């Protein structure tokens, strides 16, 4: 098993007619992912390399049974696109778009949560891949290997780095997920880790965090209470200059959380193995699995 996507996943691509959308959707299809539809208002009836275009997601879903939306539309239209996908019948929306205003993200998340059952991955994320089954997003599939380790990360390129280290040691992955680093991400570390814990084929979890926010500390709490599978973790930004704080309000909300030290401490306390550089991730996981 894998989580969220597999060989039966059917994907509708929002923004398929754009440059990035087309490049990555076709790569996803070449990998074996069922890319069944694209949308573009006013272009219904056309096609991109054989992928039929529909005017909206609802039509695409009713014609093709698509269950996952992959969103490449520009920031100004992204909120509407994600809501359209959710109300149009998709269970999972993977939003790659970078640069969406925080207010749009907050509203989008709030509406999704109150009025739909859809899950959102991203925005500003690389998407996800279940190696050997499906790739939905912009991750380079060449570096993956089918297997039993779940990978979750806030950073796109660091996700690739971690997956690469695992594959180099012949440790395969069940699903690799980039949750994105925006202020209001859809799925959190906790949402993903909960699914990895429940997945019978996932035997270990790699979690990559970075400085800022409190998502890693919250995940550490969750791991301590609920996760029995081994967790290997890496936090980027130990030597980064301290970021700006959002006035006194920001300081009150985050307290002493948010630093690399606080996150590493919280994860260590939760029983995770925290490594110092991303290149150590593979070996640490190998040691854990081999006891």
């Amino acid at each position, binding site marked *: 098993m894998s989580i969220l996507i597999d060989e039966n996943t059917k994907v509708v691509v929002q923004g398929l007619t754009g440059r*990035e959308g087309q490049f*990555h959707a076709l790569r996803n299809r070449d990998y074996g992912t069922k890319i069944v539809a694209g949308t573009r208002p006013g272009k219904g009836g056309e096609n991109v390399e054989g992928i039929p275009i529909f005017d909206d997601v609802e039509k695409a879903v009713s014609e093709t049974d698509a269950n996952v939306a992959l969103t490449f539309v520009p*920031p*100004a239209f992204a909120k509407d696109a994600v809501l359209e996908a959710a109300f149009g019948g998709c269970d999972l929306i993977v939003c*790659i778009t*970078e*640069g*969406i*205003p*925080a*207010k*749009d993200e*907050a*509203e989008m*998340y*709030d*509406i999704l949560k*109150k009025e739909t059952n859809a899950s959102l991955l991203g925005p500003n994320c*690389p998407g996800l891949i279940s190696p050997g089954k499906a790739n939905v997003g*912009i*991750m*380079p599939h*060449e*570096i993956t290997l089918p297997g039993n380790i779940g990978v979750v990360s*806030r*950073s*796109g*390129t*660091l996700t*690739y*780095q971690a997956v*690469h280290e695992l594959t180099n040691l012949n440790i395969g992955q069940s699903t690799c997920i980039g949750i994105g*680093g925006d*202020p*209001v991400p859809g799925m959190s570390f906790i949402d993903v880790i909960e699914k990895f814990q429940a997945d019978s084929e996932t035997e270990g979890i790699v979690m990559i965090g*970075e*400085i800022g*926010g*409190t*998502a890693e500390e*919250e995940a550490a709490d969750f791991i301590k209470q609920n996760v029995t599978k081994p967790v290997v973790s890496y936090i*980027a*930004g*130990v*030597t*980064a*200059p301290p970021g*700006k704080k*959002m*006035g*006194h*309000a*920001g*300081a*009150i*909300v985050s307290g002493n959380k948010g630093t690399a030290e606080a996150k590493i401490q919280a994860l260590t306390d939760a029983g995770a193995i925290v490594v*110092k*550089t*991303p*290149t150590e991730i593979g070996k640490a996981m190998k040691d854990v699995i081999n006891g």
Partner: protein
Amino acid sequence: MDLFEYQGKSLYQKFNINHPNSKLIKNLNDLNDPINLNFPVVVKAQVQVGGRGKAGGIKVAKDINELSQYSEEILGMDIKGHKVEILLLEEASNILEEYYISFTLDRSEKKYLIMLSAKGGMDIEQVAEENPDDLVKFHVSPSEKLMSSTISELINKANLNKDHEESLSEIIKNLYLMFTEGDCDLVEVNPLAITDDGVMALDSKVSLDMNAKYKHPYFDDFEQEIPIPESEKNAKEKGLNFIKLDGSVGIIGNGAGLVMSTLDVVAENGGKAANFLDIGGGAKAETVSSALEVLEADQNVKSVLINIFGGITRCDLVAEGIIEATKGKELVWPIIIRLDGTNSLEGLEILKANPNEKIFIEESMDSAAKLAVHKGL
């Protein structure tokens, strides 16, 4: 993007938020024109750093002579490394009560957070720590409106003066609108004051969400008024995310996480990064050559580490950019390159087809960092 106090107050103007009459001056000649303010007048240094009052950057002038004297003293003053270039002159208010209010996004709750306290005008972080009950916190669902009844409840809960409930309610409503409609990351007012002239926002700490720039043309004007360090200007013009640091290994990478991690790995190998430079996702050849140009301006750089893991970024385009920027040039420092991910084989082919004795290709992030530190010694 953090705004100056006066910029925040110009947003108050836009959103009908009551604040003192004021005037901006950038040099002493500006005082020759009529200032049209009633004395006493507060002279406030406009710097983006805390503690300006203690540093002597805020003074109250009771007449025009004192105003000239204080303006002369404060203009050009250095406050914690920030030079004072602009003064905000404001009519002094007779303050009866001081409150604190802020609006921000609570990332963990994914909701807007309003914090309100009757203990304003002082260190609010201390209030939050010592008397948490004196700081009222309230979350608003982003897809819902802030109701007047909710505002009344908050005023009540925070024990603000009920005699001024109507004006307080009005100003809170407008501050909330400024926060949401105005796409602010933060609106913080300390103090929000009851004065002889009614309820007023006496200070402003505002940060804008630059992702929303396309909605608000005035974001651009604010941005141009905020000085950026000379070293970062060039990078900014080229659309690169660059922060100058004090080491000697120049860093270019894609994605904030990977670049941060590269800094860490360089440190693990005994080196120190000269900068943080993220070329972002989907970089083209010219992005990479601009990045190399930016590093050329830094005299401290002794070696350069290019660490790319392609996803939406294509390694072949990165390689083309490197060749474009270095072909036929005498390189001032060695460049160590590590390419992985999307089209990395094509990228490596391009580099190998254009050999340069100062360009080194490494297979892993660790070995590349090690070599970059070594070559920079």
